[in-house]
């Protein structure tokens, strides 16, 4: 249930979805990783909600537990203490309702782009001809025409990211978790991918949690930006992005609200950044 402490305090909500169903509900969660010499708390007492159809960006210094939160939502790990609910239920097993795009490339290296993209449908027992159509369409939408029979190793980094996006979107997950998906891409390609992601999320009304280091990227994409403190991560600022949609990723920097929002987020991140090795 929404935590009153996390209500936006500054902006007028253009796309306020707080009245909708809570998709991800993290309440006072702590994740402790046990080690031989020392144990560390990746997140500590973290409370955050993501509502249906919302696009939330998590920003924070390295090691502040952003990925940990995604892993818990994906059901790959569970919180040490506290409650994490996905649509009101805990996630003890891998969450098959979501799509998770990790920072690392994890396409199957021995399978072609077409096989990778069609993998989820194959697992779900979709008949071959339907699958082929869906794969063709997805490959086309993501601009990978002509690379269906290539192997991941033969693709550029950007194309691999697109293939990962395709293989996730093809099964129409109700929520999307992305962990710095465009971090390694060059500036132009990054913008193209952002535009593409915005379009898809809007069309399919996918709830999205997007982890990034990049404040500009967060403002461009999100309905709400959650700034996390350095490890152990807590919510430092929960900021509504009051820029109307649909947005133009190429022109958003000249929007009058962009500057003030950027400053506000920078300020919140400032002290935390000094502690993190990079931003």
């Amino acid at each position, binding site marked *: 249930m929404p935590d009153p402490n996390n209500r936006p305090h500054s902006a007028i909500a253009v796309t306020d979805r707080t009245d909708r169903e809570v998709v991800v509900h993290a309440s006072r969660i702590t994740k402790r990783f046990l080690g031989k010499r020392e144990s560390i708390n990746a997140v500590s007492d973290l409370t955050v909600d993501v509502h249906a159809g919302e696009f939330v960006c998590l920003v924070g210094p390295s090691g502040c537990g952003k990925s940990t939160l995604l892993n818990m939502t*994906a059901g790959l790990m569970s919180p040490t203490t506290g409650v994490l609910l996905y649509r009101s239920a805990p996630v003890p097993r*891998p969450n098959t309702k979501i799509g998770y795009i990790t920072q690392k490339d994890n396409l199957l290296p021995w399978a072609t782009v077409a096989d990778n993209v069609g993998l989820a449908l194959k*697992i779900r027992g979709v008949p071959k001809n339907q699958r082929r159509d869906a794969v063709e369409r997805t490959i086309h939408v993501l601009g990978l025409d002509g690379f269906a029979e290539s192997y991941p190793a033969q693709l550029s980094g950007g194309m691999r990211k697109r293939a990962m996006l395709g293989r996730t979107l093809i099964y129409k997950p109700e929520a999307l978790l992305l962990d710095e998906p465009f971090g390694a891409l060059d500036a132009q390609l990054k913008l193209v991918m952002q535009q593409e992601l915005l379009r898809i999320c809007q069309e399919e009304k996918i709830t999205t949690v997007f982890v990034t280091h990049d404040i500009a990227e967060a403002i461009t994409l999100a309905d709400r930006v959650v700034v996390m403190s350095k490890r152990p991560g807590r919510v430092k600022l929960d900021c509504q992005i009051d820029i109307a949609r649909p947005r133009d990723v190429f022109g958003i920097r000249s929007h009058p609200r962009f500057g003030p929002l950027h400053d506000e987020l920078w300020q919140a991140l400032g002290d935390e950044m000094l502690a993190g090795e990079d931003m």
Partner: protein
Amino acid sequence: MSLTRATDEFLDGTIDSDTWDAKMYTRLQRRRRRRVITTRILLIVVVLFTWEMASGRLVDEFWISKPSAVIRRAGTWLADGTIAENLLYTLQSTVYGYVCGSIAGIALGFLLGRVRFLAEVLDPLILAVYSIPKIALAPLFILWFGIGMFSKVVIAAVTVFFLVFYNTYRGAREVDPDLIDAVRIMGGNRRQVLLGVVLPSSMVWIFTGLRIAIPYALTGAVVGEIVASNKGVGHMLKVSANTFDTTGMFVMLGVLIVTSSIIFVVLNRVEKKQSGWSATHLHD
């Protein structure tokens, strides 16, 4: 001669300098290769000739036989089927042992690779058995399984088993956990993860194990035959030795050299073809 032709063509302007370089290069390579092979053949001839001359003059023929006698005996044994019969027997044990050992090795390697607890329990025990020289087990297997083919199959299988097992085990352990997570989030169940991720990703390791195990299967079978048998190349070696028949021994050693050389050449060919291998298709 051909070198000057290429040079003439270059001077005429029919070919450019890169083509000339390429032609020169392949020709020099070919010439080098020819020299290597010629020298090699010459060396073999010299050794055989020296052997032939030394036998009966410098060293008693009883100890070292001589090439002409060996070739003559090989001819006789080839004609009367002695070589074919014994070689076939040995190869049969080799193949059976190889197949059984491989299957067991892959199965157990996979199991231990995926079930961490079991691996931790069994690891030192398997290592202990692995560290025994396999020849030491041969008398026991012969006691248990008789002097027939079965005991040879078991010895070959045990030798093969460990090689395939350790490679499969390693392969199954080194599967990228991120790939497994990705497939599980897509809804993959245990079986789909195993067949769709673990198996293909271990494939390179398994192939390596299968490849290096082949010559060891032959070794296992021959060793078993030497210890106790009534047939096979190893048996013939031993019989010849027991009857002071050095000529017979050299014939059988020759048979082994030829057989294992053929295996190596074939393996190298297959390996070269497979170096382009980068993918297996997902299993449903």
